[in-house]
C-alpha cells in the first residue's frame, strides 16, 4: 500500500481531533471529557492515530496551530454538510398536507427550522463553543466571525423570489446577524433544557421567531 501523502495524513489527524472534541473519543481519553473538550492535545491525537507526536509536529508548528486548523475543519465540515442538506431540504420540501410550498416565506421558514433541528443535535455545534477559548487569536476570531457565510446568499435569493425587500433602515446584514443570534441562542437553550421547559417543541418556537424576523425586517416590494 502506498504511504499516505502529507495531505491525507493531515486530514486523518484532523478527523481524529474532531472525534475527540465532539465526544466520540471520550472513553479513551485519560483526562476525561472535560479535558478533551477544553484542550484537545496533539499528544492525544497522536495516541489515537498510533503515531508519535513528532508526526503531527511535522505538519503543525504548535498545538495552537493544530487547534486552529481543527476549528477550520469543523466549521468547513458543518457548512459543507449544511449546504448539501439545504439543497436536499428544498428539493424534498412539502407542507403539512404533503404538497409543495407555494409561499416562498413558508419555504424559508421550513428550511431554517430544519437546519435548526440538525444543528441543535450536532455535537460539532457544541464543540464550536469550546473554541471561543482561542478567540484572543485574531485568526481564530476571523474563523468564528466568518461563521456559516455560505448561507448568506440564501437571503438574497429569498428577497428576489418572494418579491420582498429590506425595510428601511435594515440591511440583509442585520437580518443575518439576528437570525444567527437567534439560532445560536436557541441551540444553547436546547442544550440546557432539551426543550422541556416549554409546552411547544422548541423547533416550533424557533420557526415562529424566524418568521417574525423575516416579517419585521422586510416588506413587500412596491409594484411598478
Amino acid at each position, binding site marked *: 500500500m502506498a504511504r499516505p501523502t502529507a495531505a491525507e495524513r493531515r486530514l486523518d489527524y484532523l478527523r481524529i481531533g474532531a472525534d475527540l472534541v465532539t*465526544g466520540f473519543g*471520550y472513553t479513551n481519553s485519560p*483526562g*476525561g*471529557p*472535560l*479535558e478533551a*473538550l*477544553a484542550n484537545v492535545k496533539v499528544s492525544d491525537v497522536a495516541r489515537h492515530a498510533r503515531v508519535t507526536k513528532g508526526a503531527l509536529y511535522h505538519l503543525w508548528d504548535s498545538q495552537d496551530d493544530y487547534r486552529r486548523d481543527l476549528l477550520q475543519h469543523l466549521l468547513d465540515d458543518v457548512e459543507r454538510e449544511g449546504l448539501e442538506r439545504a439543497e436536499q431540504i428544498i428539493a424534498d420540501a412539502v407542507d403539512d398536507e404533503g404538497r409543495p410550498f407555494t409561499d416562498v*416565506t413558508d419555504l424559508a421558514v421550513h428550511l431554517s427550522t430544519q437546519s435548526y433541528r440538525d444543528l441543535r443535535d450536532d455535537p460539532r455545534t*457544541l464543540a464550536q*463553543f*469550546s*473554541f*471561543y*477559548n482561542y*478567540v*484572543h487569536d485574531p485568526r481564530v*476570531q476571523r474563523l*468564528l*466571525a466568518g*461563521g456559516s457565510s455560505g448561507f448568506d446568499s440564501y437571503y438574497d435569493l429569498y428577497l428576489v423570489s418572494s418579491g420582498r425587500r429590506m*425595510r428601511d*433602515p*435594515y440591511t440583509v*446584514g*442585520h437580518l443575518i*446577524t*439576528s437570525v*444567527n*443570534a*437567534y*439560532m*445560536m*441562542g*436557541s441551540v*444553547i*437553550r436546547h*442544550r*440546557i*433544557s*432539551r426543550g*422541556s*421547559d*416549554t*409546552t*411547544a417543541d*422548541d423547533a416550533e*418556537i*424557533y420557526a*415562529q*421567531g424566524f*418568521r*417574525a*424576523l*423575516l*416579517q*419585521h*425586517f422586510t*416588506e413587500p416590494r412596491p409594484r411598478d
Partner: protein
Amino acid sequence: MARRTREERRQDYLDAGVELLTEQAAARPDPGLAFAHVRVADVAARAGVTKGALYHLWDSQEAYWHDLLEFMLDDGRLAGMPAVADATLELAEATDDLPTPVEWADFIFDRFKDDPTFFARIGMLSYLHDETVNPDLDEEFRASLAEFESMVATSVRELGRRPRPGTDLRDFSAAVAALMHGFCLEHRNDPGRTADVVEHGRPQSLFASCVTAFIDAFTEPDPDADDVVTSPDRPGEL
C-alpha cells in the same frame, strides 16, 4: 490564628478560582471557555499555597472544575437568566412607568453584552455532556425562566396585548431569552454586527428590533384591554 479548617480552605480555593475565572473572562476578547484556563496550579499560586494543598482536597483538575462550577451555581455568581430577571426588576423600580419593550431590550443588552460572568457561563456549555452538571443548569434555567415569564406577563398586559392562539408566554419568554444569549455572543464575536439602528428617528439596539418583532409574532392586541398604552409598530404583513 487557628489553622483554617478543611472546609474553610476549600472555600478559599474556590473563591480564588472564581476570581481567576472572572479576570480571565474580562481579559480575553472572547473568554468563552475561560473556565478551562483556571488551572489548579494557577489557583494555588493565587491562594499562596502549593499545588499539593489543592490536590489534597481534589483528586484532579476535573474534580476541581466540577466543584468550582457547582460553587458558582449555588452562589449565584454567574450571570444568566436569574441576573436578567433581577436587572429587569431593577429597571422597573428605577422608572415611574413600566419600561417599554425597546427600553427594556436596550437596557438588558447594554448590561450583559460585555459582562464577563455572562460569558463564563456560556463557556460552561462545553460541560453539558457531563451528567452531574446539566441538571444544575437545567433547574436554574427553568426557575428563572418562570420568573421572567411573570414579568413578561405584566408587560404584555400593560401593552394591551395577549398571547396569540396556539402560543403562550412561556414560549415567548424562551424565544426572547434565546435571542438575548445569541446576541451577546454575536456582539462578542464582532461588535460591529450588533451596532444600533435608527428606528422611528431614535437609535436602538438591533436586539430591541428583534424583541419588537417577537412581540408582534407571539402576541396580538387584546380586545378586552381597557387601555391600550402602545402597540409595537407593524410593518407590512406577509
